[in-house]
């Protein structure tokens, strides 16, 4: 059977097309040819959206580290540049952002994200393209379980959750504990799980377990139910926008007991929105500005000088530490090859960061101290520091 002959096109037209394609191809080659005089690192984060302060703080810390690295001669004799993509606080945008960084900007490594759900969305892309990804602050264990190219510069939820449970039972002598979880958030669900397990083990009773969804603004139904169970403390491991409103509405209903939370509370907005309602809240966190170690005090002074006197929060510290850990790994790897950077990151040991002495464990999680802070007079004040062995 003969195929129908396609209509003939004038020869000139075809030649014009192929010439156009050829010139386009040369153009593309010229664009994507990696420039040899710089090392590119990609950053994706929530610069806008519901948790914008997380992304902005991380970015500020990261840029401070970048300035220091370039001021001392860059890496491997090359200047380092950071390309930043905003994901608007959305998991689906995170996928687009890392793909753009990897495919279009051809970065050697990726730093991001704070929120575990967004790190989890982006991590498979980095793993598939063999680009090392270092999350500064995602604490859900699942993040680094995606694959051997995924690392984190912070502790994980089992440590954070169980430390708070120990603190609540041992130090605050809490016997009846209510929990209010953000059911749509991997981070919050993870913390709840580990907090609950440890608290029960230590003999405390979980009297109420309520939940809400990220973005909610009305929590009085759940809080009224919690009030009826008469708890000693309320554990609310969510993010600052919701938690500050939760505290507010709890006080309006006449609930006077203290709140406990995780590092998701660490934002200036907590106090701005929560006001007097968040006073007395205890949270687990990565660092305290009251820590007197010289690394910490130097970082705070430099940060204040660069950003108009603003006190850095934990996310800024982790952004700074993540960038410096990445630079350290590239220096030790002696190359921008993905596999070599990965091997160097995996062997990070006793790295002296602002958030403590950091070593990577076999699961690519950073091992370091945790601090407990309390909100007093609108400030996050240092209460105590707890070593990983205790968890």
């Amino acid at each position: 059977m003969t195929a129908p002959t396609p209509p003939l096109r004038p020869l000139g037209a075809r030649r014009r097309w192929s010439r156009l394609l050829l010139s386009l191809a040369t153009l593309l080659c010229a664009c994507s040819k990696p420039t040899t005089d710089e090392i590119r690192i990609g950053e994706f984060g929530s610069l806008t959206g519901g948790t914008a302060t997380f992304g902005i703080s991380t970015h500020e810390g990261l840029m401070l580290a970048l300035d220091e690295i370039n001021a001392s001669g860059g890496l491997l004799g090359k200047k380092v540049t950071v390309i930043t993509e905003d994901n608007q606080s959305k998991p689906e945008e995170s996928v687009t952002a890392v793909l753009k960084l990897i495919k279009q900007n051809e970065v050697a490594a990726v730093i991001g994200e704070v929120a575990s759900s967004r790190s989890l969305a982006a991590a498979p892309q980095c793993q598939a393209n063999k680009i090392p990804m270092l999350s500064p602050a995602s604490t859900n264990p699942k993040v680094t379980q995606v694959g051997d190219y995924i690392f984190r510069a912070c502790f994980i939820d089992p440590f954070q959750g169980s430390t708070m449970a120990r603190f609540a039972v041992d130090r605050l002598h809490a016997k009846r504990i209510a929990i209010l979880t953000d059911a749509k958030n991997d981070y919050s669900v993870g913390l709840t799980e580990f907090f609950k397990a440890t608290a029960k083990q230590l003999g405390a009773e979980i009297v109420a377990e309520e939940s809400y969804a990220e973005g909610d603004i009305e929590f009085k139904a759940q809080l009224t139910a919690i009030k009826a169970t008469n708890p000693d403390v309320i554990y609310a491991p969510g993010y600052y926008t919701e938690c500050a409103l939760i505290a507010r509405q709890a006080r309006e209903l006449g609930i006077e007991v203290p709140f406990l939370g995780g590092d998701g509370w660490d934002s200036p907005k907590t106090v701005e929105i929560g006001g007097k309602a968040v006073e007395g809240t205890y949270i687990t966190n990565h660092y305290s500005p009251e820590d007197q170690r010289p690394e910490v005090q130097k970082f705070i002074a430099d940060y204040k000088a660069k950003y108009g006197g603003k006190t850095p929060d934990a996310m800024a510290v982790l952004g700074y530490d993540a960038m410096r850990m990445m630079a350290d790994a590239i220096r030790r790897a002696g190359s921008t090859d993905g596999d070599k950077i990965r091997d160097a990151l995996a062997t990070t040991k006793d790295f002296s960061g602002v958030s403590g002495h950091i070593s990577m464990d076999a699961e690519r999680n950073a091992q370091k101290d945790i601090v407990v802070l309390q909100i007093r007079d609108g400030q996050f004040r240092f209460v105590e520091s707890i070593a990983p062995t205790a968890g």
Partner: protein
Amino acid sequence: MDQLAQQLVNGLAWGSIYALIALGYTMVYGVLRLINFAHGDVYMIGAMSAFYFAHWLGLADAPSLFGFVVVMGLAMLTCALLGALIERAAYRPLRRQPRWAMLTTAIGVSMLLEYGGQALFGPDPKFFPQLIASAPALRLGGAVVTNIDLLIFGVSLALMLGLRWLVYGTRVGMALRAVSVNVDAASLMGINVNTIIAMTFMIGSALAAAAGAMVGLRNPKIEPLMGLMPGIKAFVAAVLGGIGNFPGAVAGGLLMGVTETLVAAYISSTYRDAVAFVILIAVLLVRPAGLFGTVTVEKV
């Protein structure tokens, strides 16, 4: 028992907000047979404009009831103008077109407000200034009613009574009812249909703005996408009560608020949003025209 009383107070306060928004849906449906999907976003603009007025007028730093009333009034005025603008620019040119054209445009206007709002106000949540400091005002058994809850009940009731007087007690209201019965006949009787429809949009939008300002006061976190869920819920409330029916919209809104609160309190907050729609389906199966609606038989 104390807990139930408290949950009812929570639910009624939240339901009053739904009721105010639902009234706007019902009014527009009455005169145009249009579901104005942009209505939830007008509520967002109400909260946002109240936020900006409070800061511009310096009232954010000097909390008072008077300050809040001024801010709410200005927000209502802003949204009334916005409502008139939306009607004139987006819906009036399509009035003689098939009904789906207007419906699709409504979805477009909604998106324009949401994403235009993100560009204009920024996508980050804003903290609504505390024009009135929240304090317990009343104790009913074990239930605490805050002064803000009382304000919401009072303002909602006043606005609803005002609306009732306007619709049933004035000549304008009579014209409005005439237009909703039959546009052509009303026009033949010398009623300026364009003016009446524009007014309907203005009143509905002003009610949504009042709801927005009061929500800002009660739950002080506002952002450009905040109108999405309340908009859908209020629409459900309007249908539940019988769309086009004023007491129906109020009853539907209150019922929604109370049911949602009770579901979140006694079942699980995960099912809260789903339950609203289950109730809607259940009611419509038994009463297709809604709780207060009357089935009109189309004469051929």
